[in-house]
Structure formats: structure tokens, C-alpha cells
């Protein structure tokens, strides 16, 4: 299905069950990461809790932080974020927003992208899909990126480099 949507690599939420596939990168929760060891598959340690960023030590680094409400975590995030970290926003809740709220959200994304650039973090735009129907195709993602004044080509290139550097670490 990912190939049909022009997506080369999929991020897949890991919950102790392994999914076979070469184009899958596991998204491992911080708590799960400390209790289980994945050796034969590339993975990224993710967190959605801003307080967990503080406990991020070199031995258990958080690769990716999921930002649910940028406005709320704005100042805290600026203090806690580390260079090279991935900051992810997803579309899961945006579908239910009104047109006015979507407009506001897109404007926040524009600002958030600038913040990622200045703090040397990797901006990650995700569908947040929990089913096939919630997935977003490559062309649709490109169209949204363009609305946010983000050049799709450079975004995908930077993201590819970032994923490669993070996954090769383990």
C-alpha cells in the first residue's frame, strides 16, 4: 500500500510484535525501549511527553518528539530540545478541525518549521495514521508542505538523511 501512495519507508508503532518488511522503521516508545531490545531492525525512540525530554541521556536518547500542540509546549520545548532531534507533527487530529482551525494550524506549522530550522532539529510531517484509510499519499503531503512554504524536495532529502543517520547509529 505504501508503494501505491509513493511512500518509500513507513514508520510503524512497535508494541512487541514484529512486522516483516524492509521498508519499515519501528517507532519505539521510551518505556518499551528500556524493557525490550530490538537488534535486527532499524528503529527510532519516540516520546510524546515533554517531561521525558529532560531524562534524555546519551545512553537512552529520544530520537523523535511528537508535538501535539505547539502553542502549549512552545517555550518548554525551546528549552528542552536538543540539536539533531526529530520533531514530529501529525495530521491525525487535523481532519476533525474546522476550516478556520486548519488555517490556524497550517500557520503554526509554518512557524514550527522555522523553529526546527533555527534549533537544528529535523522537522517531520506525519499522517499519524492508525489505519490504511488514514494514510496520506506522497503527493498530498507535498501539497500540504507547499502550503506551509516548505519545499518538498529539500524536505524529503533532509528527512532521508536524518533517518539514515539515526537508524545507522544502532
Amino acid at each position, binding site marked *: *500500500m505504501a508503494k*501505491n*501512495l509513493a511512500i518509500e519507508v513507513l514508520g510503524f508503532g512497535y508494541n512487541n510484535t514484529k512486522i516483516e518488511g524492509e521498508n519499515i522503521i519501528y517507532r519505539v516508545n521510551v518505556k518499551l525501549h528500556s524493557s525490550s531490545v530490538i537488534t535486527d531492525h532499524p528503529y527510532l525512540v519516540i516520546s510524546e511527553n515533554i517531561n521525558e525530554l529532560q531524562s534524555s541521556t546519551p545512553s537512552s536518547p529520544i530520537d523523535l518528539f511528537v508535538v501535539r500542540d505547539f502553542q502549549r509546549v512552545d517555550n518548554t520545548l525551546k528549552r528542552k530540545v536538543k540539536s539533531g532531534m526529530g520533531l514530529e507533527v501529525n*495530521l491525525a487530529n*487535523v*481532519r*476533525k*478541525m*474546522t*476550516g*478556520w482551525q*486548519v*488555517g490556524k494550524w497550517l500557520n503554526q506549522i509554518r512557524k514550527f518549521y522555522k523553529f526546527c530550522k533555527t534549533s537544528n532539529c529535523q522537522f517531520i510531517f506525519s*499522517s499519524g495514521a492508525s489505519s*490504511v*484509510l*488514514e*494514510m*496520506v*499519499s506522497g*503527493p*498530498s*503531503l*507535498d*501539497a*500540504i508542505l*507547499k*502550503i506551509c512554504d516548505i519545499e518538498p524536495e529539500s524536505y524529503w532529502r533532509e528527512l532521508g538523511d536524518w533517518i539514515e543517520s539515526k537508524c545507522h547509529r544502532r
Partner: protein
Amino acid sequence: MLKRRDKRRYLAVLHNGQMDGIEIVDLIKKRNSELFGHIATERSSLRLIQSQIKTIIIISCKIKGLDNILSTIAFTDPPLVTLHISGTLKRLRRACLSKELTNKGL
């Protein structure tokens, strides 16, 4: 003055099968109007082409409004997925057919 037809793009859109083609086009038009305005929606000239396959419909829009339509599809609820985009209906149908065969589980 030359009379030139605006170029169009054909899109295959995957849905959950609970709505018919007309309802889905109305849903996209409504959301597009909310996000980009009624004028932009009219200009993109969104049309339903066919909805023979249960969970896939084919729509078309003017190339100028394609980016707006693609982003609108990603922002709709219930969710819709753009499966394929093509400049000709023939090529799109061929692509849909091959995708249907590879994704029989959908």
C-alpha cells in the same frame, strides 16, 4: 485568439465504501470551500468521473487547483486517500486495476 481547454488531472481516491461518489465529491467540495474559499473551489472544477469499484472513485480537477484538492483530501473526515494521479483517464484506470489486484485485501 486560441481557444485552449484547461488541462485536467484525474485522481483515484480510496474511501471506506460507506458513501457514494456524489457524496464524496460534495464532501471534498465543502472542505475545499472551507479551506480555500468558494471561488477557488469553483475554479478547480471538481467532477466525479466514475465510481464503479466499491471503495475507489475517480474524480477530475483542473491542474491549477490540483494542490488545493490534494491537501483537501488529506484534511477530510471521514478520511480519504489519493491512490493515483494521472493526466489521462485511460492510464489512471490501468493503474487502478493493477493496484486493485495488488491490494485485494483492502
